[in-house]
């Protein structure tokens, strides 16, 4: 990752915006098409996450499929209530993921604490109190369709990222389309 980071800064500094944009388009395309997910299922939302992974909804076709090892994954899906006791474990697993990495907060409990917001001593009120959340999915629990919408939104987010530090493109970068094949022999 360090080499790619320096490349981005060098191209940006030399005024190579056009080249950088093209590299960004390629990198973002390759990252956005295969967001491997770490399913951090801590409560009932995990059931909907499992349903989303299997054949009726089939996340594999979006390039998102669950891996049980944080070191293989790009995005951590926080599915379920995070308690004060679970918080250090979630943080540890997030820290073990290699950069670049994204966080999806799935369900009301990870968004804000949900029904445990009031009168509860043991629940963390929102995963964004200790992790940088990129996509919030509301629901108690969210249907797999919402989950799918969240993944598509995350893909849009990933495809606006730039290798230059602290920069983001205004819209999704598209790779140039392949030239149409000439008539051919018929």
């Amino acid at each position, binding site marked *: 990752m360090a080499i790619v980071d320096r490349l981005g800064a060098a191209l940006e500094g030399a005024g190579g915006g056009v080249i950088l944009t093209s590299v960004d388009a390629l990198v973002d395309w390759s990252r956005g098409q295969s967001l491997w997910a770490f399913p951090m299922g801590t409560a009932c939302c995990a059931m909907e996450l499992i349903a989303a992974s299997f054949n009726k909804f089939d996340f594999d076709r979006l390039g998102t499929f669950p891996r049980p090892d944080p070191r293989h994954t790009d995005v951590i899906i926080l599915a379920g209530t995070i308690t004060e*006791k679970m918080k250090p474990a979630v943080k540890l697993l997030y820290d073990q993921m290699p950069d670049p990495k994204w966080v999806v907060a799935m369900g009301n409990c990870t968004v804000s604490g949900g029904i445990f917001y*009031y009168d509860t*001593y043991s629940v963390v009120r929102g995963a964004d109190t200790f992790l940088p959340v990129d996509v919030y999915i509301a629901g108690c629990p969210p249907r797999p369709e919402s989950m799918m919408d969240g993944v598509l939104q995350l893909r849009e987010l990933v495809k606006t990222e730039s290798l230059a530090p602290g920069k983001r493109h205004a819209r999704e970068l598209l790779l140039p389309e392949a030239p149409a094949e000439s008539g051919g022999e018929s």
Partner: protein
Amino acid sequence: MSIYEAIRAVVEEMAPDLGITVTESWDDAILDIPAESLLAVGRELKARGFDRLGMVTAVDRDEEFELVYRVQSRTLSAAAFVKTRVARERASIDSLYEVWPAADWQEREVWDLFGIAFVGHPDLRRILLPEDWPGHPLRRDYEDANVIKRPDYI
């Protein structure tokens, strides 16, 4: 013979100085005992076929804590509640670990949430909350600055 009658028959065989009062409630038997005789009652029940401790829990009754044990018997096909009370200031009682090892985690949970100490428990640590948690949350007088009170209009 109902479950209550079966359990009543078992209790009548047991030593009278244990101070057991049996009451019927919904065809279920409740054994009210003094806290001092808990361990002795546990041993007697185990010897008479109550081979399983299903549950240990507690209720906060303001001045005292009520401890509730569910004992079950596979040979008699029966189950009973055993209830006893300890004073709030001296919240401590004998552990039933040596009679039913299943009491291990159950008593740790009661210690964690109610702060009732079990004398003779081999490993009395918190089980659900972090080790450094202050206080025991299921006590009625528990206060935590982190808790947000629910507003009246919800």
